[in-house]
């Protein structure tokens, strides 16, 4: 059976259970629903809030280098620490954290396959105790935005046959029927999608238990829509977190060489005056 292109970035719940007390392993839970962590989390895991700790809280941007260094230091993470990320919603925001950490060049960061859902479903130990971690002196060694696409780049590349735009939102958001996922606030003026984008909802990459589908299944899903490894791929969603999940799948599980996440996503594009928009399936 074919394996993932970079199998080292994925660990099982069993692996985490066996290694969660290792001194060089730190676990961080990152949830969409920021109250989930306090219900009960993996013993020793720190909880990161994506709304306040994994972004710039003043301007719209990813976390700054100084804030990331502070977060990592306060979490007891050193430059050589093996960092395990997991979260709810099949690792939406764990992937968001992973994407940022790779741009900040953290060497050993991995995602727990199946996330919080699988850990709970398997009846593994949880706690409400907050971990006490010794501060480290974390320093970002390199910052590279190679995994990030900005609006101007999308505008420049959207018509190129060498570029594959992937809209990972639901079919109703893609078609313009909905402006945002049901139950979440609306944050754009127009519905639809970027012209030429293929709709491949992020959740297609996951099994029912929250784990990732096999390499063969993943390849069939993306290649079946013309999103192949020879293209420059740009994934987007509404605010960039679901697309970081797809970015992870394409870049690390399938090994596509050129994949970027357009984190401005639909909340940027759908609010732009004069931006081209397509509607319909």
């Amino acid at each position, binding site marked *: 059976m074919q394996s993932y292109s970079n199998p080292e970035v994925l660990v099982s719940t069993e692996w985490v259970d066996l290694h969660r007390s290792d001194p060089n392993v730190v676990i961080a839970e990152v949830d*969409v*629903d920021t*109250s*989930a962590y306090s*219900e*009960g989390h993996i013993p020793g895991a720190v909880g990161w809030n994506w709304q306040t700790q994994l972004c710039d809280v003043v301007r719209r941007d990813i976390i700054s280098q100084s804030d990331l260094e502070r977060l990592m230091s306060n979490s007891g993470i050193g430059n050589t620490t093996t960092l395990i990320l997991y979260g*709810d*919603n*099949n690792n*939406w925001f764990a992937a968001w954290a992973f994407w940022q950490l790779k741009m900040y060049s953290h060497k050993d960061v991995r995602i727990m396959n199946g996330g919080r*859902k699988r850990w*709970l*479903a398997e*009846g*593994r*130990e*949880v*706690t*409400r105790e907050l971990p006490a971690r010794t501060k480290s002196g974390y320093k970002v060694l390199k910052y590279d935005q190679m995994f990030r696409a900005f609006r101007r780049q999308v505008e420049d590349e959207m018509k190129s046959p060498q570029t594959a735009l992937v809209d990972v*939102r*639901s*079919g*109703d*958001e893609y078609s*313009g*029927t*909905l*402006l945002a*996922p*049901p*139950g*979440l606030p*609306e944050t754009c003026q*127009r*519905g639809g999608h970027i012209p030429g984008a293929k709709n491949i*909802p*992020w*959740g297609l990459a996951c099994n029912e238990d929250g784990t990732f589908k096999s390499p063969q299944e993943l390849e069939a899903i993306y290649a079946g829509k013309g999103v192949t490894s020879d293209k420059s791929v740009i994934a987007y969603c509404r605010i960039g977190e*679901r697309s970081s999940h797809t970015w992870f799948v394409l870049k690390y599980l399938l090994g596509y060489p050129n994949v970027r996440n357009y984190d401005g996503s639909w909340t940027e594009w759908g609010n732009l005056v004069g931006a081209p928009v397509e509607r319909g399936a």
Partner: protein
Amino acid sequence: MMRADDYRVVKQELAGLQVNVTSYKIGDSYHCHIDNIDPGATIARTEGLTREEAELAALARALERLKARHGNR
């Protein structure tokens, strides 16, 4: 040792949408959260002394949020 006991996921329709109703017990409390299957966003999260109490509260909260949704204008 605490863990999630009686973990259960039930699919059902709510306000015209397919949702997952997930419930389990941690310690003395039952927890319930509801997410829409496509695209998978959490809509409500509640706690109760029984599964029924947690689920009913979550369903009510989710229904309230879903009723407030808007389509394209």
